[in-house]
């Protein structure tokens, strides 16, 4: 499997292969007697999957080939969108404390809190820096020794190992982390239980699975009997994922199929998992607009409390009362696929990528933003 990037992408973006897989999907749907009256509903839970679906016109292709027989629903795959408003408000309040610098990713800085964003704080003279990674934040703490550097750390299992490694490497004493990490499998359990979603299967996230491996989903499939496929991010990857889910539905044998074998193993990245477990422990966690899911978030183990921005600065900050969503914003319904962006009255009327109101229009992996950019 030693192919150059060029060879690989020419295969994974080939029109011929695309047509083959689409034909296989159509044949399976035919055999199952699927019509627009009893469509198959598959949810993906990764913002980058939605990006691929839209960027390559796959949604358009699926619609042309299959009509309304297949529904692809975008789930809570945008970490910025599900990061709890309480964490953003805490970061905003913390930025008012003298000598504190808040660092985070670009979309995290723009996402709205209860009444304002970190970007507003920056405009009002607070020290807020956009970084590419937690490592950049550690570098800032070496450069600005007189300041307290707080890294607001969002993301699923993909971004956790980076934070864990920096924590294990004994960062400078003026470096702190505000953990807003969330875990994918617990969220899938909740989604599988939501009967009004009527999900037939899941496309599982590629990068998250690189870390946690196929085995992380086995209990989910055992318990809820949902057809599942791990998928990569090229057009053919996603189509093969969809095809694998539909084949399971046709055969009536739900399991976890790994269609992203060039990156994902059964065990996952054991080293990364060890780092995560050394530094973090699972806690019940709020998902923005969705409520609290048990064991779905990560917080520091007690021995790392000296790095935890919540423990260290908790009694110095005044956090404002929580307002979950901006008025009129239906992001909490978009995030779990109950409605499409078009069904939100604010979508492209008041809420646009240039002037976003809700988190789903801010997050680079937000369903509203992706649809606004690529949708017809």
């Amino acid at each position: 499997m030693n192919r150059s990037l060029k060879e690989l992408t020419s295969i994974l973006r080939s029109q011929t292969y695309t047509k083959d897989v689409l034909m296989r999907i159509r044949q399976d749907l035919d055999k199952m007697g699927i019509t627009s009256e009893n469509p198959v509903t598959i949810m993906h839970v990764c913002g980058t999957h939605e990006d691929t679906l839209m960027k390559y016109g796959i949604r358009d292709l699926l619609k042309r080939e299959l009509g309304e027989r297949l529904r692809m629903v975008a789930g809570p795959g945008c970490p910025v969108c599900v990061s709890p408003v309480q964490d953003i408000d805490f970061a905003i309040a913390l930025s008012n404390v003298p000598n504190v610098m808040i660092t985070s990713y670009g979309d995290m800085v723009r996402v709205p809190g209860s009444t304002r964003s970190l970007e507003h704080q920056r405009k009002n003279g607070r020290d807020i820096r956009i970084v590419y990674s937690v490592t950049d934040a550690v570098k800032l703490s070496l450069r600005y020794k007189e300041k307290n550097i707080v890294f607001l750390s969002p993301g699923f299992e993909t971004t956790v190992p980076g934070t864990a490694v920096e924590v294990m490497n004994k960062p400078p004493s003026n470096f702190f982390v505000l953990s807003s990490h969330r875990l994918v499998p617990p969220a899938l359990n909740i989604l599988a239980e939501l009967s009004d979603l009527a999900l037939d299967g899941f496309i599982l996230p590629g990068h998250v699975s690189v870390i946690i491996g196929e085995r992380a989903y086995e209990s989910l499939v055992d318990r809820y009997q949902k057809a599942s496929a791990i998928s990569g991010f090229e057009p053919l990857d996603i189509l093969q994922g969809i095809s694998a889910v539909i084949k399971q539905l046709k055969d009536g044998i739900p399991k976890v199929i790994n269609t992203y074998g060039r990156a994902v193993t059964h065990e996952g990245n054991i080293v990364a998992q060890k780092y995560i477990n050394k530094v973090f422990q699972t806690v019940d966690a709020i998902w923005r607009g969705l409520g609290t899911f048990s064991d779905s978030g990560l917080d520091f183990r007690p021995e790392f409390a000296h790095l935890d921005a919540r423990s260290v600065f908790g009694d110095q900050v005044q956090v404002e009362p929580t307002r979950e969503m901006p008025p009129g914003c239906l992001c909490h319904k978009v995030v779990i696929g109950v409605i499409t962006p078009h069904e939100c009255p604010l979508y492209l009327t008041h809420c646009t990528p240039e002037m976003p109101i809700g988190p789903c229009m801010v997050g680079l992996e937000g369903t509203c933003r992706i649809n606004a950019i690529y949708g017809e």
Partner: protein
Amino acid sequence: MGNEARYVELAHGAGGLKMDQLLEFIGHRITLKVTSKGPGNIGVEALDDGAVVSRREFQDGDIVISTDAHTVSPVFFPGGDIGKLSMCGTLNDVLMMGAIPIAMTSALVLEEGFEFSALDIVLRSMDEISKANSVPIIAGDTKVVPRGIIDQIMFVTTGLGKRCTKHPVLDANTRPGDAIILTGPIGSHGVALMSFREGIEFEADLESDVSSLVPLLAPLFTKYTIHTMKDPTRGGLASALNEIAHKSQVAINILQPRIPIDPAVRSAAELLGLDPLEITSEGRAIIVVPPSDAAGMLASLRKHELGRYASIIGTAEEGPPGKVFLETEIGGRRRLQKPVGELIPRVC
């Protein structure tokens, strides 16, 4: 300058002896300073308050004028420098109006502490482009500002040209049925700069495509009917096509596999998480022609080194007006919009 200053000082902009030395330094390195020896023309060597271009230079052609401020980091990049960029950028803008450039002016702002050796290279690059395109620099100005006011060096160049096409060439003139032609592979300027800044090296050497399109396009202005021309600079192809669609009130359909992109640019963009369609080119043009002229224009472009990979990438249609659509490499269709806001680091 012999044994004199290595660095530009504030005194070099203060109007005294040092100022004269700086102006001499610059003047020495610019060859063409007046439009022609013809009567009435006054150039930069006169050191007067301005230049004069005799109206005979324009015959009966409309006068086209375009101006652009240039700042780039790094000042020297693979494939060029700010001197070359500030000349080519403005020459190309004049061309995009269907005009042949006749003269340029250049205002130079230097940050205190800029090295004379670097200034030497930048000015020689300008001179080279000026000579190669037979476009003199007929007026100029130089200022030195204290450290930190600007980033090293900044040029404002203005180009003067005479329109040679039969009809005005405007972003708003594209009509349904027109063919959209791209003169060459896109994105290498932006990707070369970005990978250089990030310190990333790729298998192939990535170089900016910065170049003057005068030799490629000027001979074609009287040969074919051209409705619109636009160079895909800031915001790349995505921005340029949307501006044409919006101003002309047409839809534009683009076939992604027809868009020439250098494989090295494609790989680098992939690794940097950038979309080649949104990346700056500095030596490419979109040319919109009626269908009857499409094949002829394409063949003529391909005869020239700068247009060897020219391609008809799509067509203009009635509607929906103002929108650009992309048929992707796998055969799906989606909207192609202007890039939104700044390129910001994402979570994963």
